[in-house]
């Protein structure tokens, strides 16, 4: 247990942690896939719908005014959470995937020509691969990949030499969701900027674990999902520097993103509305804001410390399991462990863990190229949140032992 956080008390905020599966108390270690939500977020959603649900913007009536203010306050909350210079640099999307698609499409239309290159890394989530493949195919540009070593660390020398004038954007993950690697993003940004190349960071696995200051990082775009930071499903964020967002063409067309429409000519709206076509997910944005309040309240540093302790403990406990090997041994490592035991298929391990009430993820974790690189069918991944306990890590270790016993 962390020195700072009273985990026992905190767990009471998360009703689902008391759930039973197969008659056993749930041990939820699939936080990398999605996080659980504190009652503070759920009550915010409920209040919204019971007290001031209304369509935002352009409404003449009070409800619409209150909803609009809450929606824009949520934008402000996100902006200050990541220390954006302007609120209008925060665009609400459905999630990381949509945020990256938006940039790939709009930035791609702005800047990509035949023969240009887009640089990603060997450990990207499919959501940071496929959108670039699609726009590259469209523009006859080329997708290049920063390789990694067998610890799951990017080869920074290779990165330097891949960073040619042909590269128009670098898009890499801050933290790998399948390996746990924390990438040297500051250095990546510095090197790219030295050549005037913008950088997108996929912070889907970082925003809930490490403090992110977009101005200090000087990053051009970041993308993340509300559901992974204790917020509702269906809401996400794209941060983009004003200069870029102003230059980029809009992504989707429709209500709210226009200033004037005639059949002959349409004038697009200013930021952030230019990139928010249609009725937004008002409840989602407000719920995300409540989740950020919750995180701020605990303190991201305290969260980080608690999770780091859990990670250390888990590494120690799991390395005692005979025949267990970690996939991803980067020095800088986030609070998740990917592993395999002997020659047991990860799906089998995960299945037996599930029957013991322990929820882990198995498979390629939407990073097939990583699995191909290691020549494995997938991994078992346990990903921790601050509300997890050492007792739960013990249950995981014991559960694995049992699985091994049954399966080999």
């Amino acid at each position, binding site marked *: 247990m962390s020195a700072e956080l009273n985990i026992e008390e905190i767990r009471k905020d998360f009703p689902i942690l008391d759930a039973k599966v197969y008659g056993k108390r749930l041990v939820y270690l699939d936080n990398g896939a999605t996080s659980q939500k504190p009652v503070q977020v759920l009550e915010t959603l409920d209040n919204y719908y019971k007290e001031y649900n209304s369509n935002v*913007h*352009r*409404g*003449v009536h*009070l409800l*619409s005014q209150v909803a*609009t*203010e809450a929606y824009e306050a949520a934008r402000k909350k996100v902006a200050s959470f990541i220390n954006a210079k302007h609120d209008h640099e925060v665009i609400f999307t459905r999630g990381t995937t949509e945020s990256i698609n938006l940039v790939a499409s709009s930035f791609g239309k702005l800047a990509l020509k035949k023969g240009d290159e887009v640089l990603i890394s060997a450990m990207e989530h499919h959501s940071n691969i496929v959108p670039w493949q699609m726009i590259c195919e469209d523009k006859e540009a080329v997708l290049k990949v920063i390789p990694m070593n067998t610890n799951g660390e990017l080869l920074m020398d290779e990165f330097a030499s891949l960073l040619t004038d042909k590269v128009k954007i670098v898009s890499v993950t801050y933290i790998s969701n399948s390996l746990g690697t924390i990438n040297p993003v500051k250095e990546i940004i510095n090197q790219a900027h030295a050549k005037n190349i913008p950088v997108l960071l996929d912070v889907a696995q970082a925003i809930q674990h490490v403090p992110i200051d977009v101005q200090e990082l000087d990053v051009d775009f970041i993308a993340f999902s509300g559901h992974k930071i204790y917020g509702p499903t269906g809401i996400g964020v794209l941060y983009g520097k004003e200069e870029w967002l102003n230059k980029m063409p809009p992504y989707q067309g429709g209500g709210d993103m226009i200033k004037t429409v005639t059949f002959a000519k349409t004038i697009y709206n200013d930021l952030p509305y230019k990139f928010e076509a249609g009725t937004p997910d008002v409840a989602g944005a407000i719920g995300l804001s409540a989740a950020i309040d919750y995180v701020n309240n605990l303190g991201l540093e305290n969260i980080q410390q608690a999770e780091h302790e859990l990670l250390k403990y888990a590494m120690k406990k799991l390395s005692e399991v005979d025949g267990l090997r970690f996939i991803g041994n980067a020095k800088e490592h986030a609070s998740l462990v990917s592993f395999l035991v002997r020659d047991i298929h990860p799906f089998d391990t995960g299945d037996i863990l599930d029957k013991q009430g322990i929820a882990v993820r198995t498979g390629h974790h939407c990073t097939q190229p990583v699995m191909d690189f290691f020549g494995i069918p997938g991994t078992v991944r346990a990903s921790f949140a601050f509300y997890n306990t050492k007792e739960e890590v013990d249950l995981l270790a014991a559960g694995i032992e049992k699985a091994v016993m049954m399966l080999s």
Partner: protein
Amino acid sequence: MTINEQQDEIIEEFELYGDWMDKYEAIIQLGKELPLIDDQYKTDDNLIKGCQSRVWLHSEYKDGKVFFTADSDAIITKGLISMVIKVLSEHTPKEIADSDLYFVNAIGLNSHLSPTRSNGLLSMLKQMKAYAVAYQVKELNTQNNG
């Protein structure tokens, strides 16, 4: 009257009104009294963005002071404009640029204004200050060159 004296007068006046209806009727009355903008100035250039209703704002600089005239197709908007003009018109560019408009909050209007309306008001204030600053710069240049 200084800008602040003018604001205080409006605040005093509005203290007499009990409920929103009285306030709104006063604003509407002001709207009806607003000296209309000259039709030649109702151009797209003078149109202010950010309003559900349309607002035209024209400024003139004479004898060291800025004169504003304005119009809108919505009467409540016109009433709001009228108050702002009363406060800011016929002052020096510097006075306008430095002004702090506290009367909108003080008369409890902002909680009654739809966001569209307050955005509109804000755009208008921004525009008026921008004009004032422009005249200030012009003044300085004239002095420097003169």
